[in-house]
């Protein structure tokens, strides 16, 4: 889990502050020091650890070269964990993006009841992931949960004990928590779109649906990329939610990379292989973040306002 910060931090820190003379660069120092201290140094530590066979107990850490990497890369558990991670990533993106886009557009309008709804939509994000997971776990319990209590046959399924359903539940709960956040991003994005464009469209006789597809959606291109980057990179680090809901189970159906790493490192005392997985996580996260950035084109991080 030491790898979470650097993934997120790689994009912003240095690039944006450039351009002006050296006199202001000292302002970047605190951020740089924090980034190096809490991001780069642990990252190097993890990289070094992946070439050892430390068991967390002994005070000397034996250097074993590529042994950990060999054992991780030859383990059929790794492709499975990668597959589960990508599945959760893709499904939760597919599930979250349309819903939060529509909700964001909906609550962007300046109407009082929509502001009230916006506050309500936001509540799930304020809850801790562990609390959410415990609640859902209790609600979905096959014997004492919602289904058994209400007697609704549809709800009386073995939600977390069936491989396919369990994965679906993880995606749903993740989405339930993070849709509010992305809704907020989209709301902000929609409010940046100049009203004059809609006025012009109305004069041309465009209806609401046409306006949405011809103005709102294209104008939100960079918001979609930002939101997707956060979703995709963030989904690599899902751990507590999966751990509490399913503990990677049933069997290994929801054993994502982060869960796999925790189990190897802290349950099986295999710090070397766990560190190797951590490095893989960082690399996958970097690749995804860069890929999405490229998708947005060169101007993705520059301001859009003047370009209207």
């Amino acid at each position, binding site marked *: 889990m030491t790898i979470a910060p650097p993934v997120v931090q790689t994009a912003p820190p240095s690039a944006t502050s450039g351009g002006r003379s050296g006199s202001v660069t000292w302002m970047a120092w605190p951020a740089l020091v924090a980034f190096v201290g809490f991001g780069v140094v642990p990252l190097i530590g993890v990289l070094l650890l992946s070439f050892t066979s430390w068991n967390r*107990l002994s005070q000397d850490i034996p250097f074993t070269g590529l042994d950990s990497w060999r054992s991780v890369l030859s383990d059929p558990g790794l492709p499975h964990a990668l597959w589960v991670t990508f599945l959760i990533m893709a499904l939760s993106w597919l599930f979250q993006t349309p819903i939060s886009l529509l909700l964001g557009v909906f609550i962007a309008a300046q109407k009082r009841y929509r502001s009230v709804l916006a506050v309500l939509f936001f509540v799930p994000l304020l809850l801790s992931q562990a609390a959410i997971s415990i609640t859902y776990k209790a609600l979905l319990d096959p014997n004492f949960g919602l289904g058994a209590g209400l007697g609704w046959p549809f709800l009386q399924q*073995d939600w977390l004990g069936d491989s396919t359903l369990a994965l679906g539940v993880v995606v749903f709960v993740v989405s339930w928590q993070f849709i509010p956040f992305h809704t907020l991003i989209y709301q902000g994005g929609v409010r940046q779109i100049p009203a004059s464009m809609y006025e012009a469209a109305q004069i041309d006789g465009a209806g609401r649906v046409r306006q949405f597809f011809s103005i709102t959606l294209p104008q939100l291109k960079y918001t979609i990329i930002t939101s997707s980057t956060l979703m995709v990179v963030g989904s690599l680090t899902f751990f507590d939610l999966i751990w509490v809901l399913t503990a990677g189970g049933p069997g290994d159906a929801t054993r994502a990379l982060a869960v796999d790493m925790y189990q190897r490192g802290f349950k099986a005392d295999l710090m070397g292989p766990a560190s190797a997985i951590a490095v893989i996580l960082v690399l996958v996260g970097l690749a995804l973040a860069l890929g999405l950035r490229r998708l947005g084109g060169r101007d993705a991080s520059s301001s859009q306002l003047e370009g209207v």
Partner: protein
Amino acid sequence: MKRRSFLTLSAGAAAGAALAACGSSGPSETSGGDTASGEASYWFLSGPPGEPIRQGAVDRFNKANSGGQIKVTTFQNDAYKDKLKTALGAGQAPSIIWGWGGGGLKSYVDNDQVDDLTDWFAQNAAVKDRLFPASFGPATINGKIYAMPCETVQPIVMFYNKEVFDNLKLTPPTTWGEVMDIVPKINAANIAPFSLGGQSRWTNMMWLEFLFDRIGGPEVFQAVFDGQANAWNNPASLRGLTEIQNLIKANGFVKGFSSITADSNADQALLYRGKAAMMLHGSWSYGIISAEGGSFIKDGKLGYTSFPTVEGGTGDPSNTVGNAGQFLSIYSKASDAQKETAKNFFKSLLDDTEQQGWIETGGVPIVKGGDAKLASSPDKDFLNFIYQVSSNAKYFGQSWDQALSPTAAETLLDNIAKLFQMQISPQQFADSMNQVIGK
């Protein structure tokens, strides 16, 4: 997790501990203690019912001894395990290390982190001779004793709901054949034959521990423990793995068992609410049912018996598995004065007051002849049963995941989860377990 004590450890706490493990790895100032005066540090698990009893034992010791004192720090279960490993890795462990013996203790021994107590026990035969001989099993590594057994014995027993059996006019099974016979009958009444908190994985493991022992005797797992090549390919182990999958196919376990955690005590609730007829679980379940099950025990509805025999099996039916005790070791880097304090403390353990305390929580102290004290308890029937099972057992097997090294144990639990999920066959299970033998 749960089985180590009655402590209700919520999944949230577990997750919190998991997160805390990432950040809080700094050395602790509590670990050293005052080395000159012999103030020894002692870490143990917090929460009822164990904490007040452990604390009481320390308080009485500190009061009775003006010299070396004991300083206590308590932790929740999972937080403790992580903290202790980090502290050992940093050379900052407490003078007295509370633990479960077996594979965990062996890893401390391999890293020279705990003291060999064999000679001390030889010189203080009285300390050793008053305890259950079986409790020294998990404390013994390579023929040497590295820990002082303490607290209570916790065998795994077969609980059943008498009311369900009466209503269905059935008797609890005594053989595996009878188990397979009554499963469809209980299912027909819309009741689950067996309750199981399968997400916790070690709960499933208890079934295999008994099946292996009943079919092939303790030798089957001993071969694995001793690191013999391909030990899991023993016909007895393959038969045991097949039998359990047959039981799963016959819907022997409650629907959704693989999503039920033992931490939530839902498995016990299924039994006392009559949704399941039987449950194979640790003796600590009695305490949970008596605390949470209303008048279930008072109304005489809780039955308990030993694991059934298996047709054609060679294992002794008196054999049992579980926790033969808890264990205290002495940190090798503690000062001589601290070690002296610790050993004096060991001598004071399980005095009458402490024994009484454990008995009141529904535990059986690992003291020979301790059954005399059980008579005054309202739970005397159950406690006597546990005492008889534990003291008469020809062989008291340690839970596999605690007997093995953490690395092998994790692979084991992983494969058990897949076996119970029908993701792998018995032979696939054996094959992947054979690869981690001796690791």
